[in-house]
């Protein structure tokens, strides 16, 4: 089974069912399928072949959904990039993946035009909402679906070992790594998750998370897999609006991250927005506090709450069955269906229940590796129990209780989790070192009530260099990094603590 066939199957079964609701527009399965096939034909006409990378650089919306389906249909590999990404990083992603196609929104022109100026691999850039304007780069053409002409589409010979998607994730080295996921990987993950959540065709799933984030992406994939209706929101910027939409559409499933739930709980009038249809709330990316768990259950007593833990490298790892929430509220549960997880010691030996060690994952959901990064891949994918198979080393330390339920302890690397997104301190430090006058920079995460962790930078400037304001440093970072990566705090110090070998020592910074 190929990933897009999950969707096509639903379109065949119930062509007239509403598949997608976005900003009060409704699209049936048949309509979406037709649009995706049409775009796939355009991509083929532009020379896209099996295995080529098709990058989307779009806000949540009709086009982001259609683009993913279309890329898969023509045998290409879709690569969603967060629209908050700045031009230098976008150029890096396009170059690193050697993308053939970029699908971007016209509002992001300053960034994608800047990125294209440093890229040669992209031969076609489809611009959404382009108003027929002339583009500085001759590779840019308007998003083609408005004219409605039908083109010939040739089904490619894709198999489930082919790549379906590449999702970039922050790495401790500072260079984002492309997680390669096959059709088999993604179909397996979607099936396992929708099975334990018990998703059904009559579910209405709201998605406020960006589709460039795999948690958001899988809401689309799973909704289409089970033939449900997806209510897609651009963001969670205006919680009242989202709540109104959720009530109107009688949403049954609400996936969020702790920051989303914090924003929700901060609303004084939350109780005036009852959501009687809500059946399931899911949380991942970072742990919910026990207080938030209590409040959510109090507000939505009829909804089941799922605490989950995942990694882009295998999508989801664990979930806590809701009936265990009272017994072990701080556990992220156990492995999901059709997946085996266990803890290992430093030597890679399997540990019994009640131990602390690195979590490893075995299953069809485990990635194929990091794109073009064999050394990074070898650190995470290691031989498993059966000859020839690879298991994923999560890089996260967990402990288990006597019954094998998992509790997060710490990361092995220094990645920060802010708003549920991974932030590589190295990536931020690299940007800071690019600022004129900066001598040394060290970035850490500090606790934050809404963000989980906030990014804090310690910076030393050259002697006699006019020191900028905190705001100027933050703005400089915002010009290079996604907003969730930019420091919230900047501390100016005369000197940073160093080890004997001259490396900056972060222990003790706060």
């Amino acid at each position, binding site marked *: 089974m190929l990933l897009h066939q999950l969707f096509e199957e639903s379109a065949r079964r119930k062509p007239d069912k509403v598949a997608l609701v976005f900003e009060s527009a409704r699209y049936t399965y048949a309509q979406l399928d037709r649009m995706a096939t049409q775009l796939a034909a355009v991509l083929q006409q532009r020379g896209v072949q099996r295995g080529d990378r098709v990058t989307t650089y779009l806000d949540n919306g009709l086009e982001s959904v259609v683009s993913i389906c279309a890329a898969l249909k023509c045998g290409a590999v879709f690569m969603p990039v967060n629209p908050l990404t700045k031009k230098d990083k976008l150029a890096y992603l396009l170059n690193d993946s050697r993308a053939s196609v970029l699908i971007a929104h016209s509002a992001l022109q300053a960034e994608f035009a800047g990125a294209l100026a440093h890229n040669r691999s992209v031969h076609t850039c489809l611009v959404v909402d382009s108003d027929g304007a002339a583009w500085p780069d001759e590779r840019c053409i308007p998003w083609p679906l408005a004219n409605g002409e039908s083109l010939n589409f040739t089904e490619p010979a894709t198999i489930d070992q082919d790549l379906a998607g590449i999702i970039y994730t922050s790495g401790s080295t500072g260079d984002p790594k492309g997680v390669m996921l096959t059709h088999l990987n993604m179909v397996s993950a979607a099936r396992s998750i929708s099975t334990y959540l018990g998703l059904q065709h009559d579910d209405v799933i709201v998605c406020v998370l960006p589709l460039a984030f795999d948690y958001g992406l899988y809401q689309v994939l799973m909704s289409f897999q089970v033939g449900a209706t997806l209510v897609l929101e651009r963001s969670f910027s205006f919680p009242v609006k989202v709540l109104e939409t959720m009530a109107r559409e009688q949403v049954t499933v609400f996936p969020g991250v702790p920051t989303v739930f914090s*924003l929700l709980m901060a609303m*004084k009038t939350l109780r005036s927005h009852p959501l009687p249809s809500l059946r399931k709330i899911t949380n991942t990316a970072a742990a919910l506090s026990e207080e938030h768990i209590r409040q959510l259950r109090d507000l939505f007593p009829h909804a089941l709450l799922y605490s989950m833990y995942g990694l882009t490298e295998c999508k989801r790892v664990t979930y806590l069955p809701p009936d265990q929430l009272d017994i072990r509220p701080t556990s992220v549960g156990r492995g999901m269906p059709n997946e085996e997880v266990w803890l290992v010691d430093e030597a890679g030996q399997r540990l019994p229940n009640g131990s602390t060690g690195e979590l490893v994952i075995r299953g069809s959901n485990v990635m194929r590796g990091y794109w073009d990064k064999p050394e990074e891949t070898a650190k995470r994918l290691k031989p498993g129990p059966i000859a020839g198979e690879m298991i994923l080393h999560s890089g996260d330390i967990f402990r288990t209780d006597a019954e094998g339920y998992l509790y997060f302890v710490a990361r092995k690397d220094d990645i920060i989790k802010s708003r549920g997104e991974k932030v590589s301190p190295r990536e931020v430090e690299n940007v800071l070192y690019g600022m004129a006058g900066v001598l040394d920079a060290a970035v850490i995460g500090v606790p934050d009530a809404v963000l989980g962790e906030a990014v804090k930078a310690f910076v030393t400037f050259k002697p006699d260099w006019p020191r900028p304001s905190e705001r100027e440093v933050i703005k400089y970072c915002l010009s290079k990094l996604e907003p969730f990566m930019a420091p919230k705090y900047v501390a100016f110090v005369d000197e940073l603590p160093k080890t004997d070998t001259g490396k900056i020592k972060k222990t003790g910074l706060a």
Partner: protein
Amino acid sequence: MQDIKAAVRAYIVDNFIMGGEATFKDNDSFMAKHVIDSTGFLELVTFLEDTYGFVVEDDEMVPENLDSLDNIDAYVRRKSPA
């Protein structure tokens, strides 16, 4: 109350404009133009409350009030005593 748009624009340029390159018109959606992201709107609300001395109620946190300079201008005028 003359300079609501100028004051809010200055605040946004100072705090959100990434690298100072992006420009936006008075009726541009901050969201669509990627001027402000979700946590940015919370900071904007705090700025409005501190500057104009009223409380932004939950139900007023909607694009119609906050998602462009024109909308903010009209909203602040409605909320402020004459």
